[in-house]
């Protein structure tokens, strides 16, 4: 197999600061995401600890609001997006037979913007006015009135946005220009396809967020009135612009998860993916629809009936391509010779639990019903089902799946299974009761609540702590695999297909210096 002979590279800190190697940068992204997962997770546990019982126990309301805001920003921009970019860096060149990403130096910069952005963002917790507290959506007038923390946040969002756009450009340039001879677009692994489409979403959505926060910044400091009703502006316009970014962002967070799942399920079902082409078209359809559904996040602001109808039906249409995907994953497993290693367990949980999140999404899409659900814990339950048991579970599944390829060692399967079961039980305990809380009328983003919500909140807090602490097992598994263990073969999994399994484990520092030829 085409593997370069020289794998010399700087050692120590300089290796990581100056590396242009896709595997090094992939590792940096993944480690950064893991750290942010624990930072954001700690914030979640502060929230859940406060909500264990009614009344104010642990934190003041203003700090509670900072926690809800920062938890979301850290998890979305610091944990999930960088984790997927880490997978993209490691896997896309290996899967398409390319020697590296198309723009390696840009790749280094894309990553190194992130630690600075998040230092800036997290530093707001230590300034006198505190961090942003108006919710991650940064709606004015609250965000227009916030302290200096909001300005820091806007600058941090600009840096994350530049990082994401540069990363997206790199992914598209790599996939369109660096595929091995013979690898036509419809021969690409599904993970590569989902990332190609995600990269276009990033490219189209992030500049819109940059525009929105720039207008917010000029409203705050340069005398403009984009969102200031007193000056002739319109705060609802911010919501429209924000969600024009925000809804595609939801799919930026889930399409790569679809890709990872579509790699893992065929491997452990020992069957080719059912309906490969329909998976590609379904992904593209979801991406297109994501740009015409944004106002379903704001049914209650007041809009013409025709608008409500349009956004309701367009949102419901997303269920069609998503249903195609779920059907295809199940059909892939149908009569397969299945085994249940940890990556497969997380992937099956992904399919089942993400579908629950999809169904609650359909409920929220019904405009008249949404008037009851808006800003309740039902919404919190919904988006955690799609983002935790969806995005995060797939990230964990992918990490277990490719860990032997990255480290050269098999991970500890027993610990992996413990991690899985504790995560699944903890997650459902944390978030399923929140559906009931929301339907009963408990609002989101509040540090105190009426007495009748106590019991479900207590279950939820116990589940959240169980889920949170069980992630330490994941760290233990990863550290063990990095340090040693049973040697992994080139083709780690019996049923695995694809170019990445043709190179040795661990994957050499340089791979495919001579491109493979695909038949």
């Amino acid at each position, binding site marked *: 197999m085409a593997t*370069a002979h020289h794998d010399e590279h700087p050692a120590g800190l300089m290796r990581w600061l100056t590396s242009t190697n896709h595997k090094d940068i992939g590792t940096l992204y993944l480690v950064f995401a893991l750290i942010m997962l624990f930072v954001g997770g700690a914030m979640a546990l502060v929230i859940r600890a406060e909500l264990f019982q009614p009344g104010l126990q642990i934190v003041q309301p203003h700090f509670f609001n900072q926690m809800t805001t920062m938890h979301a920003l850290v998890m979305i921009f610091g944990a999930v997006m960088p984790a997927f970019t880490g997978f993209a860096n490691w896997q896309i060149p290996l899967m398409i037979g*390319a*020697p*590296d990403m*198309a*723009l*390696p130096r*840009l790749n280094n910069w894309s990553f190194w913007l992130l630690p600075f952005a998040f230092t800036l963002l997290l530093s707001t917790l230590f300034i006198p006015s505190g961090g942003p507290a108006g919710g991650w959506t940064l709606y004015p007038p609250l965000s227009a009135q916030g302290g200096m923390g909001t300005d820091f946040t806007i600058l941090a969002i600009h840096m994350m946005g530049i990082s994401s*756009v540069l990363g*997206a*450009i*790199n992914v*598209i*340039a790599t996939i*369109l*220009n*660096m595929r091995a001879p013979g690898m036509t677009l419809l021969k690409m692994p599904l993970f590569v396809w989902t990332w190609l489409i995600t990269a276009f979403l990033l*490219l*189209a959505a*992030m*500049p*819109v967020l*940059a*525009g*929105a926060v*720039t*207008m917010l910044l000029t409203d705050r400091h340069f005398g403009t009135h*984009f969102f200031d009703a007193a000056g002739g502006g319109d705060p609802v*316009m911010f919501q429209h*612009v924000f969600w024009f970014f925000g809804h595609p962002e939801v799919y930026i967070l889930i399409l790569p998860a679809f890709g990872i799942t579509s790699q893992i399920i065929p491997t452990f079902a020992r069957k080719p993916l059912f309906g490969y082409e329909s998976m590609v078209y379904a992904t593209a359809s979801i991406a297109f629809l994501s740009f015409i559904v944004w106002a379903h996040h704001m049914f209650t602001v007041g809009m013409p009936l025709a608008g409500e109808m349009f956004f309701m039906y367009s949102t419901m249409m997303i269920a069609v391509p998503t249903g195609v995907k779920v059907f295809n994953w199940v059909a892939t497993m149908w009569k397969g010779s299945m085994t249940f290693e940890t990556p497969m367990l997380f992937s099956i949980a992904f399919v089942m639990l993400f579908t629950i999140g999809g169904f609650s999404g359909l409920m929220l899409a019904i405009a008249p019903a949404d008037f009851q659900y808006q800003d309740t814990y039902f919404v919190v339950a919904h988006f955690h089902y799609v983002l935790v048991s969806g995005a995060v579970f797939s990230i964990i599944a992918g990490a277990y799946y490719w860990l032997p390829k990255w480290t050269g060692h098999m991970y500890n399967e027993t610990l992996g299974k413990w991690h899985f079961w504790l995560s699944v039980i903890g997650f459902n305990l944390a978030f399923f009761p929140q559906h009931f809380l929301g339907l009963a009328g408990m609002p989101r983003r509040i540090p105190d609540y009426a007495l009748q919500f106590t019991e479900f909140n207590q279950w939820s807090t116990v589940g959240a702590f169980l889920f949170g602490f069980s992630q330490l097992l994941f760290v233990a598994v990863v550290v063990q695999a990095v340090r040693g263990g049973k040697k992994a073969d080139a083709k780690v999994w019996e049923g695995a297909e694809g170019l990445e399994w043709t190179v040795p484990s661990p994957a050499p520092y*340089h791979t495919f*210096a001579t491109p493979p030829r695909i038949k």
Partner: protein
Amino acid sequence: MPMNHLPEAQRRAIVRTAATLAAIAFALFVYTLWRGIK
């Protein structure tokens, strides 16, 4: 290492793709601001 070994045509194609995409992203940013001002 790898970029230097790519054929010239492929390198040009990469730069062309990246430049086009960067221009689209910047145009979208400017368009968002312009719609805000309008």
